[in-house]
């Protein structure tokens, strides 16, 4: 039973999937059943693996850069209320812009290479980190801040030694969210002009009416997303456990 636990969500997902297909009689050109998709997955294993590797790289890059940039921005914004007032709304704005509006600008600046894709993915991944972390940075318990004030620590030292460690749970919470958004970030990045990656493959398959290939790629993307989420979850839990040793 215990050994089955990690497979449970997978099983449940398959059951839901097959159930939906049966129950609502979803035609296979909209949502093929698991068996058909598995067949497509096997048939196109090499193709999908190649594209998955590209997307995997983008996800890793995007998440890593996103975490670092998000961390930096949140700290910078927490240090300066003026920056918060001026840049905050611009950040919010970047999240509300549909990709097709930004894509031509990004490709114009970064070209069609990895750059524009990573930029696009970053734009999506980086925000939850910034937002959650900033939120936590602005909520350091007042008594600690008071104590630090008596001790004579201000500015960036207070930030480094007090507010940042106190906000760790918020940062991790944002990182977990970012891990969820990282795959779609990469896929949307590929949307912006790519000739590789799972997002590209899915678009292609969709255009060619090869729904089973599209869902095979989607399954791989899902596995990537869930594995990533779980990994970040475990890392976050470990970090929290360690801190109160």
């Amino acid at each position, binding site marked *: 039973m215990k050994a089955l636990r990690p497979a449970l969500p997978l099983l449940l997902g398959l059951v839901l999937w097959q159930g939906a297909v049966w129950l609502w009689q979803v035609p296979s050109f909209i949502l093929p059943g698991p068996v058909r998709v598995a067949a497509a997955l096997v048939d196109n294993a090499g193709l999908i693996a190649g594209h998955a590797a590209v997307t995997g790289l983008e996800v890793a890059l995007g998440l890593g850069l996103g975490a670092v940039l998000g961390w930096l921005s949140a700290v910078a914004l927490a240090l300066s209320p003026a920056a918060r007032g001026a840049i905050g709304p611009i950040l919010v704005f970047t999240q509300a812009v549909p990709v097709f509006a930004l894509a031509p600008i990004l490709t114009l600046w970064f070209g069609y290479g990895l750059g524009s894709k990573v930029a696009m993915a970053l734009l999506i991944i980086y925000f939850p980190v910034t937002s959650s972390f900033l939120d936590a940075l602005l909520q350091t318990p007042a008594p*600690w801040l*008071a104590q630090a*004030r*008596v001790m*004579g620590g201000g500015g960036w*030292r207070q930030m480094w030694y*007090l507010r940042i*460690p*106190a906000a760790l749970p918020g940062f991790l919470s944002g990182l977990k969210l970012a891990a969820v958004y990282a795959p779609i970030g990469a896929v949307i990045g590929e949307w912006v002009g790519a000739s590789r990656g799972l997002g590209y493959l899915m678009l292609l398959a969709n255009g060619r009416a090869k729904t089973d290939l599209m869902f095979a790629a989607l399954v791989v993307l899902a596995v990537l997303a869930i594995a990533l989420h779980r990994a970040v979850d475990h890392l976050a839990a470990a970090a929290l456990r360690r801190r109160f*040793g």
Partner: protein
Amino acid sequence: MPRAWPGPYGQRAGVDRTDPPCILRPENGPVGPDRRAPPGLRLRGRARVGAQTLFGPLDLAVAPGRWTCLLGPSGVGKSTFLHLLAGIADGISFAGDLGAADGAPLAGRVALMAQADMLLPWLTARDNLLIGARLRGETPDTRAAEAMLERVGLSGMAARKPRALSGGQRQRVALARTLIEDRPVVLLDEPFSALDIATRVRMQDLAAALLRGRTILHVTHDPAEAARLGDHILLLTHRGLTELAPPRAPAPRPPDAPETLEATGALTRHLLACECQPAAAPSAEGLT
């Protein structure tokens, strides 16, 4: 430290008025108030939260370089006093005079041991001691921190996080952190309340030794503690501030000396007798 001290202490008998041994004064002090010499403290005015008066017009004077104990019923405003002096009484509106008697700002000269231990849960005991130095950008002295932890009886617990310490152990870490701050003015808010008698006596001795010559304002509920440590003993009630006579012997006094025990008894009787329910209208005069 030949400075005019505006307070009633000079007139009172039995108060030792010799200059404290000023261990902190630099060889060649600058002209003007010496930032390292312990200043007296003054707080004159009234404090409010919103529309509610926390304490009426009061006049608190703390002698420079002396140990002043502040007793009083729960909720009368003792912690608020300390917070005002430390400059962290957020949400309290204070109308009046407040600060060091030498006129220079108090900021940077005060260490505060608050009523709650305020340890940072993610730091070890050692790092909790060093946080002050780190916040000020000084080189943290790990050896000094460990030595201080040993003096408060926590050798071997330097690497523990607060969660793995008992209540009294945490209080001692907080005490050690206050002591290592090395400030001319030290505000202590019930610093020994979670300790057993034996440990308490040891910690009192330690604090007395290390803080000798500084300006101390020490809030406590323990009459024996005030009788042991106080150069001055103040009683704050809802009717105002009263000064009580400490034993004549120089502090710290032995806990079982007859004079200490007698003073403890007297203080206890006083505390048990004093009017501890909030008075309808606080008395206008601060010091009686």
